[in-house]
């Protein structure tokens, strides 16, 4: 059992689950305590000792089932399929196998262990033989689907499949000769024929489950990594969906980082009131110095998000971040604009994330099909909302600054900057194109504290990180 659990731990590690040697030891000890009799208890025991992150639980469940019963289950399934194909009941199936065994001993035919196990549907023995063959050909090195055939063939060689085929053919022939007047024998002959293809199927299943088990998580993680570096402009539907998941996960990670950072703020000024209060206990001697460790005020954020067609994909992710982080900041006010400007803070408060973003992008708040006019949108912001910008506010503007040759009104930005703590501009276009054509980036840039190119998730993450640490 030790070897089995060690191998299992190795496979978990291969799938990205962190299992330390100490945890493997615990798993072993736990397995000894609950025993092997109760499958669910055994699984729970291993899980509690070896898997410590909730996100790894699905991987564990999947791999456990494949590892500890994948083959057995597959064999049961295959046997049932055969039964169904030959239209046999469970009992008839058993009787038929007994009949074959009797016939064999009557004709005193010696058969190989594999053929015997196959004809008696001895799943334990079959599994053992298959596993032995698998370890001889080094099946644990399999990594790609196209290798299935090659490994399957190699296992067949080790099992001497050709010999088994001849044996079965001989038995089938004998049964067929008997079967001329005996329907049972005829049925048995069909069963023998069928079992050979069953064996092939078993080998195929074994190879496939082995591959899936070892690389259950691999594809997922590879995909995600390349995704963070892909530009927002070129995402497919499916990638958009995956990206959303990634963004949510990043937001979660960020939250953790922030809570840690806040807690690190351990130094502070001496809290006179607290120290005096504590000194009463020691007869007025300031024995214990109290320090004011009150948390820093959470930053306030105002976000202006361009949702015109040209930056639609990027806004989607920006909005998603805003939504995910709304409970992190004490005050987030979000606006979207094209030529008009509309506030979406309440919309985000009331609806769930996808609905809110869809509503925002579908033109419920403002006309999203107009031509971008940054100047006008800024002016509207100045007229209606400038009071919401205080010296604690971080203003984030997301847009490509392509103004369709309208008036830029950069004085609004200057005004905002004087009031705000900082102004950050995120531009999804690459830096080299700024200022060309109708891009007004050069005009706006002097009034921003930070201007960043932001067209993939990695850059967005970097920006948010800087925002949080500010």
């Amino acid at each position, binding site marked *: 059992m030790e070897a089995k659990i060690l191998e299992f731990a190795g496979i978990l590690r291969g799938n990205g689950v*962190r299992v*330390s040697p*100490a*945890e493997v030891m*615990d798993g072993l*000890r*736990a397995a000894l*305590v*609950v025993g092997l009799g*109760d499958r*669910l*208890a055994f699984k*729970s*025991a291993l*899980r*509690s*000792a070896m*898997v*410590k*992150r*909730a996100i790894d*639980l699905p991987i564990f469940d999947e791999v456990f089932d494949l590892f500890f019963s994948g083959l057995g289950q597959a064999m049961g399934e295959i046997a049932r399929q055969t039964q169904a194909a030959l239209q046999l009941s469970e009992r008839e199936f058993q009787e038929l196998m007994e009949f074959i065994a009797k016939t064999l001993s009557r004709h005193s035919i010696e058969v190989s262990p594999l053929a015997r196990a196959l004809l008696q549907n001895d799943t334990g023995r079959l599994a053992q033989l298959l596993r032995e063959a698998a370890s001889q050909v080094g099946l644990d090195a399999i990594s790609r689907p196209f290798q299935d055939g090659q490994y399957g063939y190699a296992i067949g060689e080790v099992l001497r499949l050709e010999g088994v085929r001849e044996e079965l053919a001989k038995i089938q022939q004998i049964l067929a000769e008997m079967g001329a007047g005996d329907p049972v024998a005829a049925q048995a002959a069909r069963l023998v024929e069928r079992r050979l293809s069953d064996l092939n199927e078993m080998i195929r299943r074994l190879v496939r489950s082995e591959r899936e088990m070892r690389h259950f998580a691999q594809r997922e993680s590879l995909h995600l990594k390349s995704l963070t570096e892909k530009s927002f402009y070129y995402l497919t539907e499916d990638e958009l969906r995956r990206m959303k998941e990634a963004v949510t996960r990043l937001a979660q990670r960020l939250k*953790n980082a922030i*809570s*840690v950072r806040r*807690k690190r703020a351990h130094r502070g000024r001496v809290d006179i009131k607290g120290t005096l209060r504590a000194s009463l*206990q*020691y*007869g007025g001697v300031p*024995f214990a110095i109290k320090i004011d*460790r009150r948390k820093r005020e959470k930053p306030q954020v105002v976000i202006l998000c361009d949702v015109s067609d040209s930056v639609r994909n990027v806004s989607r992710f920006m909005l998603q971040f805003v939504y995910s982080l709304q409970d992190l900041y004490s005050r987030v006010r979000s606006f979207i604009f094209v030529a008009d400007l509309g506030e979406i803070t309440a919309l985000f*408060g*009331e*609806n*769930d994330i996808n609905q809110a973003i869809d509503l925002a992008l579908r033109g419920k708040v403002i006309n999203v099909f107009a031509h971008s006019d940054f100047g006008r949108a800024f002016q509207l912001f100045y007229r209606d909302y400038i009071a919401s910008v205080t010296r604690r506010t971080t203003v984030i503007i997301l847009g490509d600054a392509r103004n369709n040759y309208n008036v830029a009104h950069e004085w609004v930005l200057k005004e905002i900057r004087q009031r705000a703590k900082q102004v950050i501009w995120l531009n999804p276009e690459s830096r080299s194109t700024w200022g060309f054509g109708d891009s007004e980036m050069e005009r706006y840039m002097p009034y921003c504290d930070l201007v960043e190119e932001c067209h993939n998730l990695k850059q967005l993450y970097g920006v948010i990180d800087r925002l949080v640490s500010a």
Partner: protein
Amino acid sequence: MFSSIEDVIDRFAKQKYICSRTIATVIYLASHLRKPVLVEGPAGVGKTDLGKVLAEALGRSLIRLQCYEGLDETKALYEWEYAKQLLYTQILKDKIGEVLAGAATLRQAVERIASEDNVFFSERFIVPRPLLRAILSRDPVVLLIDEIDKADTEFEAFLLEVLSDFQVSVPELGTIKANQLPLVILTSNNAREMSDALKRRCLHLYLDFPERERELEIVKLKVPGVSERLAAEVVDLVQSVRKLDLKKVPSISETLDWAKALMLLNIDKLDHEMVSSTLTALLKYEGDIRKAEQELKQYLQRARAKVGSAPASPPGGKDLLH
């Protein structure tokens, strides 16, 4: 100590805690391997209760340490009672004078005081906090460390030392070792990820919302007198509401609150008005309630269609509205 996994389930059931085989296995393991259990999961699935019930089931006393930001050793482990020490010195001034009477030099006086200093730094002047209490206890106890994710990472590191050997060193007293190993339950709401080192030392148990059957059992057990039908309807509805994308998903305790509220109002069959007027017991956000009402309408329609095909039952709850 538990004799088997079934024994855990039985004894927990006696304390009115329905536990699945998975939970029972982990508890059984914890008691045999003497390892702490880290329980994670959403709010309101009975993480804290697990600790309380475990203590009851084993007939042990429960020592609870509630974690919060800024929790430190003096609150969790021990603290010297400076005030008491000062008071004693004041009162014992004369006695100290006697001790020092024959001392010729300052050095001698200091020597004498030093030889007596364990009078002041003794267990008499120590205030044991939960962790030390658990270690000092003569009888085995259950130590519940609640919401460990709220504590600082520094505290978590300190806790590691305690959890691995159940001994603490008090500089003035030396190392104190536990007489009896306590059973430790740690709970976490996942406000932050716990360190790997801590996780490695614990058995891990993830509690999720229960499946329909188990929740039904819980409702029937915890809300005595609830009719079979109401319980089933309540649980069905809660289960389907949980599938919605809500800000705060209703937990078991909210299911129970709601069932109790409906019981108080003497309802034995759900209808639309009744449900929407009591939905606040189940859901805590305006947006959630609005979303759930949609689901509700569909659910009740489905239920009515089902009832329509079955033999008609008198609409008992309906009359109450008039």
